[in-house]
């Protein structure tokens, strides 16, 4: 479909779709994102929804939002401020209008701005009429009634169902406004609602009606074009963090030749991984929805004892329950991948909101000396590589490994240059098959290089052995209370994990100008730090950045990098956890920038913080 109206060119746009949690805003945002990805813009998304499935309609806590930032150049964040807000009701406007950039566009569903909804949202008068939105360009659109009108005459579609198609009307309008290709959405509707042809008809008609409304309504004088972003050649797809993590685990299973076993208990925001892996049984994936978080990790460890790639996925409130299993895995020295999709806490906290405050828990939240490697993803697509890396370390060193993601990475999405399967790193799996001490098998005799013990799985004749949570004698693995042996075993387990530093990439520094100030990050702040650094450099200042993907052990050159800079800033969505580690380990007087709001950093605020430090 092509427009006949004037076209304006833009470099980038940030749109936020907002409505009731039952209005289908996540679906609308997802579809718009898919169209945008296929069109070839660079993009980043930020879904922002309440934990309640259906909070009371029209209420402020029930507002669900989806922000998508797309551009004709490479971008790193979902955008600080939306330039366009689609508000399906007064509550959505109330919650989001404050974030909108001055001069931004508001498309409001006027049908929902009735007295009752206005009152629920806390408006004394209708903001669409009282002039209070003077800073914005307001497009009042009767989304609901026009949708119902457009769907008249479809047999089997009730007027209530017709009204529910209004999100596709909105999507159609936005697709017109920003020249999005529509074929993908039509195909999506056809397959998603295949069982109900009348709903396919309804949603398709609503979608087209929205597009046509943009084209014919005098309210929209022109539409906008955002050229595709130049990107390296290859095949791309859009991917969210949880999907990338799922695929990474499957890839690790293929690369290692180990069957994947997932033990999990449903928890936000990690459940996607369980659900998606459950749909991949043709990869030999076994998913076990356990009775609790403890059993989920226990079953994964039991599977690992039997020679599977054992994985357990959760979020902070579930990870605390897995501590004893992780401790057992440390002393059994068996591979286990524990995925923590971090969310705001403590306790239940804010289940759908991101935070980076589990770092110290995964490092130290167990009894005694219990070293565990930690890998952290920093972008949605990076969850794929991080999952493979976590599995590689677990299998090679026979150790539990924590893989940290967070709610922002989990639900956020971006274009992904799909890697060539042949280019993925190898994961060498070596099971012990022969005695290693004459006729005897010593289950704790270590590999001289990696310090890993042999992985002898049940079913291997002649290597029958017993392992357990009691301290083991070096080499034989027999129960031992010998003081010197315990000291030796504690140090061996620590040395094994510390030694992984030699097997991971050095910390890379991006310092084009020779700066005095380094910004060190980890996890999902990657995008915001990168975008902030661009702003700082554009202001004529110098700043270096580095991002950690391994939190235990740190890359071998970390101390050297830190000491090469006069000033170090560590932004974190916690109260300074990496900062505490860095100061303790490297005696570097790093400063922190810490906000714990349950939302990602804005590039602008980070840029201000960096510039303040640079100028100090």
């Amino acid at each position, binding site marked *: 479909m092509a427009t006949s109206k004037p076209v304006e060119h833009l470099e980038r746009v940030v749109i936020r779709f907002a409505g009731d949690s039952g209005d289908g805003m996540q679906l609308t945002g997802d579809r718009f994102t898919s169209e945008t990805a296929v069109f070839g813009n660079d993009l980043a998304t930020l879904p922002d929804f309440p934990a309640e499935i259906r909070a009371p309609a029209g209420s402020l806590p029930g507002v669900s939002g989806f922000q998508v930032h797309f551009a004709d150049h490479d971008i790193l964040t979902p955008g600080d401020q939306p330039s366009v807000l689609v508000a399906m009701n007064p509550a959505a406007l109330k919650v989001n209008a404050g974030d909108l950039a001055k001069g931004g566009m508001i498309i409001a569903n006027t049908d929902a701005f009735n007295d009752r909804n206005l009152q629920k949202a806390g408006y004394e008068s209708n903001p669409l009429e009282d002039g209070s939105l003077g800073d914005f360009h307001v497009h009042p659109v009767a989304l609901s009634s026009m949708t119902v009108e457009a769907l008249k005459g479809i047999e089997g579609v009730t007027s209530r169902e017709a009204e529910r198609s209004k999100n596709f009307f909105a999507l159609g309008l936005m697709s017109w406004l920003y020249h999005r290709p529509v074929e993908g959405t039509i195909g999506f509707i056809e397959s998603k609602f295949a069982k109900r042809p009348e709903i396919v008809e309804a949603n398709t008609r609503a979608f087209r009606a929205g597009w046509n409304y943009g084209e014919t309504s005098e309210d929209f004088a022109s539409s906008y074009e955002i050229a595709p972003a130049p990107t390296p050649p290859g*095949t791309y797809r859009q991917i969210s963090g949880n999907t990338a993590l799922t695929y990474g685990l499957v890839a690790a299973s293929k690369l290692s030749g180990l069957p994947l076993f997932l033990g999990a208990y449903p928890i936000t925001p990690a459940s996607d991984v369980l659900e998606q892996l459950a749909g991949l049984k043709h990869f030999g994936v076994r998913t076990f929805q356990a009775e609790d978080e403890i059993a989920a990790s*226990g*079953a*994964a460890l*039991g599977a690992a*004892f039997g020679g599977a790639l054992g994985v357990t996925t959760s979020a902070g409130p579930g990870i605390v329950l897995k501590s*004893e299993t992780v401790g057992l895995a440390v002393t059994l020295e068996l591979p286990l991948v524990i995925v923590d999709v971090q969310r705001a806490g403590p306790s239940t906290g804010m289940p759908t909101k991101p935070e980076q405050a589990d770092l110290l828990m995964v490092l130290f939240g167990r009894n005694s000396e219990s070293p565990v490697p930690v890998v952290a993803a920093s972008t949605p697509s990076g969850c794929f590589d991080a999952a493979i890396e976590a599995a590689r370390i677990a299998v090679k060193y026979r150790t539990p490994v924590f893989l940290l993601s967070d709610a922002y990475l989990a639900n956020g999405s971006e274009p992904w240059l799909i890697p060539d399967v042949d280019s993925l790193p190898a994961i060498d799996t070596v099971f012990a098959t022969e005695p290693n001490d004459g006729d005897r098998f010593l289950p704790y005799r270590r590999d001289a290089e990696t310090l890993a013990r042999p992985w002898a799985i*049940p*079913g291997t004749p002649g290597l029958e052995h017993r392992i357990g949570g009691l301290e083991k004698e070096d080499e034989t693995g027999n129960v031992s209370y010998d003081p010197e042996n315990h000291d030796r075993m504690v140090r061996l387990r620590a040395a094994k994990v510390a030694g992984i530093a030699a097997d991971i990439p050095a910390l890379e520094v991006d310092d084009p100008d020779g700066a005095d100030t380094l910004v060190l990050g980890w996890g999902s702040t990657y995008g915001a730090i990168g975008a902030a650094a661009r702003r700082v450099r554009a202001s004529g200042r110098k700043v270096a950045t580095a991002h950690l993907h391994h939190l235990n052990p740190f890359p071998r050159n970390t101390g050297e990098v830190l000491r090469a800079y006069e000033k170090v800033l560590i932004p974190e969505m916690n109260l300074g956890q990496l900062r505490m580690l860095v100061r303790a380990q490297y005696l570097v007087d790093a400063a922190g920038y810490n906000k714990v709001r349950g939302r990602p950093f804005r590039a602008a605020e980070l840029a201000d913080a960096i510039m303040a430090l640079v100028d100090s």
Partner: protein
Amino acid sequence: MAEGNGNLVQLTAKDFKSDQEVRWCPGCGDYAILNVIQGFMPELGLSRERIVFVSGIGCAARFPYYMQTYGMHSIHGRAPAIATGLAVTRPDLSVWVVTGDGDALSIGGNHLIHALRRNVNLKILLFNNRIYGLTKGQYSPTSELGKVTKSTPLGSLDHPFNPLSVAIGAEASFVARALDTDKKGLTEVLGAAARHRGSAFVEILQNCNIYNDGAFDVVRENKGNRIYLQHGERIRFGEEAERGVQQYPDGSLRVVDVAEAGENSLLAHDVAHPQASLAFALSRITYETDGAVPLGVFRALEQPVYDDLMKEQLDSAREARGEGELHALLHSGDTWTVT
């Protein structure tokens, strides 16, 4: 996966003794159980590498260290969960869980009931001594009401669990009871458990001679108080088989004098009854209520097995969609190509 040679192996009890010194208290009932199990193992007809013992924490949980098989001494209460992961990924193995009354019914109660209702192919042996032994003498979830222990100087306030009632309530497909010193009865029960595909739950009455000595003397010492359950036969017991079990119209069972009641009025045992109520009613017969303790197999019902069902799902998914291919997975959904 490594495979055994598949040949039938002729092993003896000695082949199942590990080189580790057994460290239970002298006189502990666990010694008797260990001997019986080591003696029984050759009957499995499996080579040693195919057998795995998984335990939690407690005196009983030291069991795997003494078996020349694969073994894991894990975490308090978690053995059924850990063994579930092993069993479903490795259906070629014979997986045994050794647990105690505190391990299985207190800290691990949740894992026990869920392993049982799923019918995972595990043999769960619960050594019940009605006391916490390893922590030196606190009351357990099977200790009798009013029991005076170190942690209950004025008597326990907890109503105890009946392990078999719990297992039957959790939909266990195989439930049995045996006595530590009863080599013949225990061996028979182990054999039946091993032959049962699915979860097999066996309560083994075990004497703790240090902290709860004599807890089961009424059946250990007095064979007349043992009710040996035999499938298809009327339930009779006593030195002269003078006592029997009758079912009342409300479904409950009572011990009666056979001479008075008449043999034909006695209940015939049916391990495969589709309703669990018979086995449950049998589990309610205790020394305290009826002056006798049923031993043997209470219930053995063929039910779909979790491990098999999971394997079937994998097989049918592969049949329907072909072996999963990573390249195709990564390219699933909308893709676009930049040249």
